[in-house]
């Protein structure tokens, strides 16, 4: 049974782009006609320090703010979130709701038998993939890992289309964007990797799109059902 709103928690390490991903996710969902809100949770953080961000998406207005304590979806951007506890909540799936989803970016299996049992009892499905490798292969940079994660998220949700995701990515990279010093530096690094901004957008989109398709297939394999109600029709 799908719900009228869901909460997504994204524990990551500083520099991986989880804040950017949450903002793009919310923008894409908003474009699709959902109510959407994103917010980051960090301090004077540096790269590799724990950094979390959150996206809430729904067909009803969303009042809830701040850290997501009871998520429907948890997206782990880096194995160290699990192996070194670089997370605001321990274990990383604390508070996850029944029938939820965990997406993990890792090249190896990270869950213990105990973790697997707890998650299975709650009918939480777990998708572990090396999304960084995926990003390097398609976009030529590990900095696109967040785009792969984003694609996987929307592949699993199934109700936010690729054009809406494209809109979210364009909004982030074409409009004037307010960012901290560290984020601005990373922005200039990634922009230097591409000749034109359009190349950057295309590569990011290709990465997200491939991860989207992969996850759609995975959902069929494991029987992961649609979690979120379809969006409200967008007014012309």
């Amino acid at each position, binding site marked *: 049974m799908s719900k009228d709103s869901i909460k997504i928690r994204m524990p990551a390490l500083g520099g991986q782009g989880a804040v950017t991903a949450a903002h793009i996710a919310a923008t894409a969902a908003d474009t699709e006609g959902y109510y959407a809100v994103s*917010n*980051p949770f960090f301090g004077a953080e540096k790269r590799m320090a724990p950094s979390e961000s959150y996206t809430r998406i729904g067909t*009803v207005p969303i009042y809830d*703010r701040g850290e*997501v304590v009871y998520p429907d979806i948890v997206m782990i951007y880096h194995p160290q979130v699990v192996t070194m506890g670089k997370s605001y909540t321990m274990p990383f799936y604390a508070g996850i709701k029944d029938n939820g989803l965990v997406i993990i970016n890792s090249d190896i299996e990270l869950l213990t038998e105990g973790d697997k049992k707890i998650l299975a009892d709650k009918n939480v499905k777990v998708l572990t993939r090396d999304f960084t490798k995926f990003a390097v292969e398609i976009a030529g940079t590990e900095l696109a890992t967040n785009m792969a994660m984003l694609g996987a998220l929307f592949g699993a949700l199934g109700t936010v289309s690729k054009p809406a995701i494209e809109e979210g990515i364009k*909004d982030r990279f074409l409009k004037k964007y307010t*960012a901290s010093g560290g984020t601005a530096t990373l922005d200039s690094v990634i922009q230097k990797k591409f000749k034109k901004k359009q190349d950057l957008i295309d590569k990011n989109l290709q990465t997200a799109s491939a991860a989207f398709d992969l996850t759609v297939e995975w959902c069929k394999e494991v029987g992961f059902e649609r979690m979120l109600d379809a969006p409200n029709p967008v007014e012309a």
Partner: protein
Amino acid sequence: MTLRSQMTAEKNWAGQTMVTADHMLFEAPREKHFMTGSEVVKEAMKRCTVDASVSYPITPQSEAAHLIGELWAEGYIGTYFRGENEFGVMSEVAGCAMAGARTVTTTSGPGTLRAMENFPMWAGTRIPCQLILMARGINSPLTIQPDNLEVSFMLETGCMIWYAENVQELFDMTIAAFIVAEKPDVHVPIVTVVDGFFVSHTRESVMLPADDIALFPYDPYAAPLPPIDSEMPPGRFLRDPFVMKSNYISYATHASWQWEVRSAAERSRPYAKHFLKGLVHSVGDEDAEVVFVSCGTASHQSKEANRELTKLGIKSKVVKLRTIRPFPTAELLEATKNAKYIFVPEFNVTGWLHNEVLQALYGKSEATVVGKPRVAGGMSMPVEVILKEVGNFVKIEQGA
């Protein structure tokens, strides 16, 4: 040549058509945008014909101050500069405002406390400047997370305090704030508060009027105190503090002036009522026995609780306080007259709003006032926690 001298009767120095606050807030057509609280502060200030802004670009803040700096670079703000520290910034804001400039700054948390001495001075000199306070924790030890304990330190400074719930309210409130603060019969500083991170860093949809319109400028010649002049108040107050001349004169002045500053803030009520469409906003069942009284993000969380309680068959109501100074006592009494249980959820450790509510309702309400749930230091307030608290007083059938 000053920027003001470049204005015409219709256009400000940035070429924007000048409009009344009523037109800006209630009549101008709006379009949907998707942005953060910090970004919306830039959009609001862009439409306010702001003469001056001073900032101290410290980390436990938001991007709002630097975005106002961009507005200056783009030609929308008259002057913009950085202070040596927060104390310097708030002193310089006073200087700009005394000279007759519409002045804004933003700060939060430890920065607010470092500048503290200036806020009663602002009120005492009756300057109509605006402080946009994006509440963060204060040092205990150093924190920068969302927490509104710092607001309790601002309560008795003599400044007006308004509290916005979300990005949309932040936009509308910061525009209305100038207009109400600058009314000649009010003319005291205003602090517009939002919760840091929960609003400053949260990206959500917001409706904005076009940016080719802006408020008419502040008219310092309509002020109850003349613009700065070292022989006249308020400049004279500071150059020659009365107490340095005569203890008797100082006493005679302060004994009446302290009351006058607070009376001035009281006189803002009708204007605030008009521009904010009421000093409190209520949603939910009118005759509910369970009532949440809150401000800022706590109102948002209460609305989530209201929605969940409705699903469980329990009537509830959320009373959101939009002004804290002056405190909306009459409106609160009216909105809680049917309440049996009043919950005051808060994002700070001491429960300052709980104390305010108790004081306002003392002897006038038979409701049980519960200062819970209360979270601090950056914790969020999940709806589950609020429901658990309500469940301690009202029977909740799970799964209904």
